[in-house]
């Protein structure tokens, strides 16, 4: 399982990359592997607002649809349209395939997330 230093991670296997009050969010390598071949990604509308823990999107494999949870509160600034045509990019490069870019509404929420080492330990226990 691949992880990347410098990213934050959630219990629901999303990764968060913070840049100047904004955050790119996607699903981790662990998550894409558990899902299998991804054939469809549903993304939210730009400007929609979510609270931490809300479902912001859906990732679907051949077998099933799986909700993606926003780990922190915020407003959607951009969605990665490329995933609509090429959902398999998440399998190929999960950390290069961000799903949404949000404006963080409460940066203190970031403190609840895991760093790389903590996330590796967390996944170790889930095995």
């Amino acid at each position, binding site marked *: 399982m691949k992880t990347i230093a410098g990213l934050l991670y959630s219990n629901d296997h999303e990764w968060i990359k913070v840049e100047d009050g904004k955050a790119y969010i996607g699903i981790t390598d662990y998550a894409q592997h558990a899902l*299998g*071949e991804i054939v*469809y990604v*549903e993304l939210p509308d730009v400007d929609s607002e979510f609270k931490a823990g809300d479902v912001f999107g859906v990732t*679907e*494999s*051949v*077998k*099933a*649809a799986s909700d993606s949870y926003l780990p922190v509160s915020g407003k959607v600034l951009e969605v990665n349209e490329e995933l609509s045509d090429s959902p398999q990019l998440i399998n190929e490069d999960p950390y290069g395939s961000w799903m949404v870019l949000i404006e963080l509404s409460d940066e203190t929420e970031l403190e609840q997330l895991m760093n790389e080492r903590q996330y590796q330990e967390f996944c170790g226990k889930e095995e």
Partner: protein
Amino acid sequence: MAELRKTALFPAHEKYKGKVVDYAGWALPVQFEGIVAEHEAVRNAAGLFDVSHMGEVEIKGAQAGEYVQNLVTNDVSVLNDNQILYTFMCYPHGGIVDDLLVYKFTNNHYFLVINAGNVEKDYKWMKDNVGTYDIEMRNLSDDVSELALQGPKAQEILQGLTDTDLSEIGFFYCKRDVNIAGANCLISRTGYTGEDGFEIYLDHKDAEAVWDKIMEAGQEKGIKAAGLGARDTLRFEATLPLYGNELGEDITPLEAGFGMFVKLNKANFIGKEALQKQKEEGLKRKIVGFEMEENGIPRHGYDVLSNGTMIGFVTTGYFSPTLKINIGLAMVDIAYAELGTPLEIQIRKKALKAKVVSKKFYSKNYKK
């Protein structure tokens, strides 16, 4: 949760790195390498499935044929020895107890293959309907392993492991006491994928060795170990129904679109009166095929709408691995069953556009 039952091939699932899930109380692999890769292997070369969870019931006796004829909707009287038919068992009200294969070995010896999730219910139903028929019945479900070798290269692969000339076994025929890699097997040219192939019934003690031999023999021909995930996408593309999706206690075979397996012209059988009546009065709903016109994957249980009014439900839906489009089967009110009818499928918060299309998503490649 109760402990999951394991088939004799459980060690093989681990060896081939299957992702094991709970299916009808059984620990079975949903996939090995991946659903799409396994699906494509079956369409283009071959796939090997463990289907040991399926149930088997043997019926013997002077009146075995008459008993089965009363039990099922299709006409058993036309079968030759070693011929097989697909049929339903129905309740008196016309709903489906189960769908099954009937193997006729001889006039007084039949072998019925039923769904794993229905074994107890089916066996009780069969016993409750013995009446005065002079038969003996045995539930062999716990005693038999079953493999399904499916795909255009199935025969070529299996032929390398047996002296029996497989080309002599026609579609929906079987042969008993076939020696496959040293094991005594019942084999039939049947399956649940829309491709040519064989189903192989054998003792638990031989199952793993035969699995390994087939995988070895098929290696150069592109065989893959295949799981329940691909089994479902394959059967769906070929419009083969699944009990619990297209079939159920409150769905009749006519509504499901399988009237060709209901012979209303034969003498009495359980459910005949209700099905006759339904046919005369006309169907109020039926299963149709549909294709999504907006981007979204339809799934089992989603609502089907027309201009915002609920008119049915999705029985099975997928991103089709072969056709690369989002398609499904749905039970809809009869007014919406014509080809081309616009529908909406409720996918989470959105009602997305779809239209009724032919259910023949994929043309079956059976050997004639």
